[in-house]
């Protein structure tokens, strides 16, 4: 076995083991932290496929952004409501449903995998970095999508600022449509 294969199976083991932990763990916090290893393993796969930018983006967005958000959500809600962070007993029906969906997805993926035409031509030259190509295509071919995504993120930012801004609430009274500044208003639970 060469070095690439060893590294591949190492990452595969990490992904499968931690993915299993995510699904099977009774403790939601353990599941959330196990997700970190899954996402890291995937980043390792991307790096092995020579998409370095994608690998680092995976760490940046999923590990640094989404996972932190998930963990914060889990942690804060449990502390506020005092609910134990355990998943309850799952009924037989749910197991059946889950198994059925998993089998269907697995069959679909393997069908797709066996039937699609893979490009098997060896690459003449390993590209130095994927980041230049990604940058050029983002700013030429996909400029519209890129800008729409940027505007969407801007809207999300403004919305978040508006929600977080406690002092100014829009008066629900239909007669006055102006923004009232009331410092005494508390957020209701």
């Amino acid at each position, binding site marked *: 076995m060469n*070095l690439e294969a060893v590294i591949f199976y190492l990452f595969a083991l990490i992904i499968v083991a931690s993915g299993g932990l995510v699904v099977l763990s009774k*403790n939601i*916090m*353990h599941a959330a*932290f196990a997700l*970190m290893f899954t996402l890291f393993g995937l980043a390792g796969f991307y790096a092995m496929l020579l998409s*370095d*930018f994608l690998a*680092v*983006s995976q*760490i*940046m967005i999923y*590990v*640094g*952004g989404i*996972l*932190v958000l998930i*963990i*914060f959500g889990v*942690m804060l809600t449990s*502390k506020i409501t005092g609910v134990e962070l355990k998943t309850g007993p799952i009924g037989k029906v749910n197991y059946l449903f889950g198994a059925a969906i998993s089998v269907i997805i697995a069959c679909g993926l393997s069908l797709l995998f066996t039937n699609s035409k893979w490009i098997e031509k060896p690459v003449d030259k390993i590209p*130095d*970095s994927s*980041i230049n190509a990604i940058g050029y295509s983002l700013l030429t071919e996909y400029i519209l999508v890129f800008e729409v995504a940027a505007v969407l993120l801007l809207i999300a930012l403004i919305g978040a600022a508006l929600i977080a801004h406690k002092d100014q609430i829009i008066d629900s009274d239909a007669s006055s449509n102006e923004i009232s500044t009331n410092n005494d208003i508390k957020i209701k639970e």
Partner: protein
Amino acid sequence: MENHQFLFNFISEYTGDILAGVLIAIIPLALLLVYALVAIYGELKIASFIQLKLGPMRTGKWGLLQPVAEVFKLLQKEDITPDGADKPLFNLAPFIIFLGCYAALSVLPLSSHFAPSGLNIGLFFIIAISSLAVLGIVMGGWASNNKYSLIGAMRSVSQIISYEIPAAMCILGVASMAHSLDMNVISAQQQGGFWNWYVLGGPAGISKIWLIPFTVVMFIVYFVTSLAETNRTPFDVPEGESELVAGYHTEYSGMKFAFFYLAEYGNMFVVSAIMTVIFFGGWSSPFGDFLNSPIWQIFWFIAKSMFFVGLQIWLRWTLPRTRVDQLMYLCWKILLPLSMVCFLAMALGGMLY
């Protein structure tokens, strides 16, 4: 840049690729451990001098062996895991934090001929991998089953995530001027004396002079955010001992506490090294071609980084701690707009030169 693999090629001629990879991977670790001893000694001594004391004097000449003694003390201490703690997460957390610091060290170009991993998106990688520290802190704080730890972890995470934005702005500003995310390339661009450093507008000749105020302000913004990202005073609210005992590592002892400690010092070095690379020429000599051979470049890189580490230690013992709301105010209402204005100017500079 092909030659950053010089050392790897040199070693692999004798040992083969796999062993050479392992050996190269050990270098940042060794660097980190030796650096930590120096930094602990520096911290003790600088703190004492600022407080008009002598500091450690008894272990070795001028107390030089004090950090070694501290390490042995930490190794000998009992490793306590509290009863109510979440054992797997509690034991894993210090190593996750340390892993983030170690991974960040792996892309720093120590010399034009040597970076442990010459990644061409090194700067982006460092921003991304620093999120591991966040996860480790939440993990430790939550698993300790202690309200002080949890509050410390919350504070720390909100602080690090907030301050990542101005820090990323600074890094992006320099990246847009350098047209590269490769730390070795950015360092190479700043060769030829300190006038070419990006803190002084980069290597664009005399016409760049209008850019200097923006880059200097950008550097100051990055320095402030780097203090906050490593949880150093004046931004060490996560471990403010007057409120939170010791923050997220309250429950840790012995070896695991040593890992937290090591990771904190390691992160100080990492942010200082980033500062060195993006603003102060990385490994390049401040005097043009004078003393600019690959070996001397290692010296320059380490010396510049250690200068900023020293600056952080100096500030720690000089400034009082900020409040949490002041911390957030500074980040969102001062540093972020400042860094955005400077970023626009630097992006314009990047387009012009």
